[in-house]
């Protein structure tokens, strides 16, 4: 009995030693919200390519569905046990994941939040994400410049994400309004503006069906809407369908955020006027480089100046560029799009 236990323990330790000897010098983990969203598929591709280049062994994990917190906790625990040097994480539950992230950091792992900041943001060693406020500002400024003098009496509809208004929802919405030149009052609050140009806000759940319904409802409130902000490109596609059924698709500017391939295609075809593209692939490859640097020299990544995270960049895509707002055209956008 005793002997068997000892033998077992011995072979287990041998196996562990062998595992470490066989592995590359440095290993890293990528944990995403799901395996199916094109955004995360692209992230995985970026991480795998960079890891191959730098000779890092990459393990990937994903939740089963959006909001699958439990699987992510187990993945972090597995990573700690496997002796990885660092973790790239897009958290499903940004608050609840914090204790197990702390456990990983205490064990000497570098934890980088990708795309989605943890709450609090400094619970991770670093955050590589899109500046969503800036993404909103770009499309807001583009819309205002495109209208020129008519911006003074624009009628604006805002198609947001959800009644709970998660941070990405607020940042893009408020960024857009600021970019358009509207006094946003409290930047943490959607809907406290008093500018008469705003017809209203409605929620879309970020999909086509919600986008269409929200657009119909706002058009019913005011049929003269001529600027439509949308939280993402599926919502924009839905809004366009609603405008088409009202016979107004050619009088309205639609702007959006994301830069997925179907969205950029819609820019090319004139459905969406302009969209702010974000870069999941870059987030992941920069993350792998940071883990490499941490393993080699113990250096931690720095934040972008003036921000509490590292900005992986956002680019305006439009085929109707305006002065003073930098942009690329849809052909170039299609080369960089994800999904």
């Amino acid at each position: 009995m005793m002997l068997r236990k000892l033998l077992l323990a011995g072979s287990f330790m041998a196996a562990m030693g062998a595992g470490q000897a066989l592995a590359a010098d440095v290993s890293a983990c990528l944990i995403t919200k799901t395996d199916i969203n094109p955004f995360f598929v692209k992230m995985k591709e970026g991480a795998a390519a960079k890891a191959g280049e730098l000779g890092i062994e990459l393990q990937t994990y994903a939740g089963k569905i959006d909001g699958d917190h439990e699987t992510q906790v187990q993945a972090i625990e597995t990573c700690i046990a496997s002796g990885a040097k660092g973790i790239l994480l897009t958290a499903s539950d940004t608050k609840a994941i914090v204790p197990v992230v702390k456990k990983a950091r205490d064990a000497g792992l570098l934890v980088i939040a990708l795309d989605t900041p943890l709450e609090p943001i400094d619970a991770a060693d670093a955050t590589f994400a899109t500046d969503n406020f800036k993404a909103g500002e770009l499309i807001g400024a583009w819309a205002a410049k495109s209208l020129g003098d008519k911006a003074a009496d624009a009628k604006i509809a805002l198609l947001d994400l959800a009644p709970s208004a998660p941070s990405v929802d607020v940042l893009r919405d408020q960024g857009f309004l600021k970019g358009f030149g509207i006094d946003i009052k409290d930047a943490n609050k959607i809907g406290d503006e008093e500018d008469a140009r705003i017809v209203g806000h409605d929620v879309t759940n970020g999909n086509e069906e919600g986008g269409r319904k929200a657009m119909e409802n706002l058009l019913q409130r005011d049929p003269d809407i001529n600027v439509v902000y949308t939280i993402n490109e599926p919502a924009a596609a839905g809004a366009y369908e609603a405008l088409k059924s009202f016979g107004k698709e050619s009088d309205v500017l639609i702007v959006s955020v994301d830069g997925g391939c179907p969205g950029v295609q819609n820019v090319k075809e004139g459905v969406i006027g302009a969209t702010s593209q974000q870069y999941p692939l870059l987030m992941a490859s920069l993350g792998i480089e940071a883990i490499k640097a941490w393993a080699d020299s113990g250096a931690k990544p720095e934040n972008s100046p003036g921000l509490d995270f590292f900005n992986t960049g956002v680019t305006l895509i439009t085929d109707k560029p305006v002065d003073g707002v930098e942009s690329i055209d849809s052909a170039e956008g299609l080369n960089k799009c994800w999904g």
Partner: protein
Amino acid sequence: MSDASQAPRGPQEFETALNKSDTRVAEFDVRERTLFDRAQHFLHGNPTMVPVIVLVLSIAAFGILAGTKFFSAFNMSLIMQQVSIIGILAAAQSLVILTAGIDLSVGAIMVLMSVIMGNLAVFAGLPTPLAILIGFAGGAGAGALNGFLVTKIKLPPFIVTLGTWNIFFALNLWLSGAQSIRSQTLDEVAPLLKIFGDSVRIGNAQITYGSILMIVIFAILWYVLNHTPWGRHVYAIGDDKEAAELSGIRTDRTLISVYMVAGLVCGIGAWASIGRVGSVSPQSFQEANLQSITAVVIGGISLFGGRGSILGPLIGALIVGVFNSGLRLIGVDVLWQVFAIGWLTIIAVGIDQWIRKVSA
């Protein structure tokens, strides 16, 4: 011939007091019926009247509060459009609920079938009508799976459809990669998929084929449920499954067919949903199952099975649409709309319980 015999034999002096007394012989003891009781009896006989009254009152109320923006032919037709998909799912849901079951998978079946139709027509290059028929068959097949698990494996409908809801959702994400098929692509390759988004104009009203389809589905189901043996069997099973079985109804077969028909209706809904949304959208209609149950319940169909008219859920779906539209137009925040629909549901079930307690 005495004087006494000629004189009219009036009642004797002491008997005259009787005139003032009650002359009735015997009768049932009738309780005074209040207006309240009458209403309860009336509604017991006509359970669809509650939602109809609520619909009329709410249209009147929002018409006064929001004016012509709300009360116009165009807005009424818009509400019809907006509820058409949930309405079709509610028709499927009603069938299952009439058998005292529940189907949490209706929305997932619909979205999965729309993705299958889109993938087959756009990526696999199948002729669009064939892709649509495969989607219908898939819907019926998904329903048959639910029915089989409920009757043959004898699992509760709630658990079965909770499971298949997740299964169908996962298959949907796997097949679609969570990526929509764009409206413009459909226009090029398979415009037939979007046919139910087209509309006819009658005056200012814009009535989509999807809205018409919803009404046609309800009309057919109303006829089938009320005028065919199958329909009566569905009610009988919902009322008392054992009694139905003892009177010779093949309950398992009927139940499986109910889930299949529900699945088929979801498949038809899938086609309509592509027209409504404009694209094949795997991420839309995530809460459609719960919204369909809400419409059924507000429409006065009893969750205990066997009671309620199939036309109720149509009214129920319209009530939800009227509330959402009306509250939005008077500028009520989204979260209070959700709040209002929540109360509406609870009140509807409360009224149902009260009607069931009707005294003879």
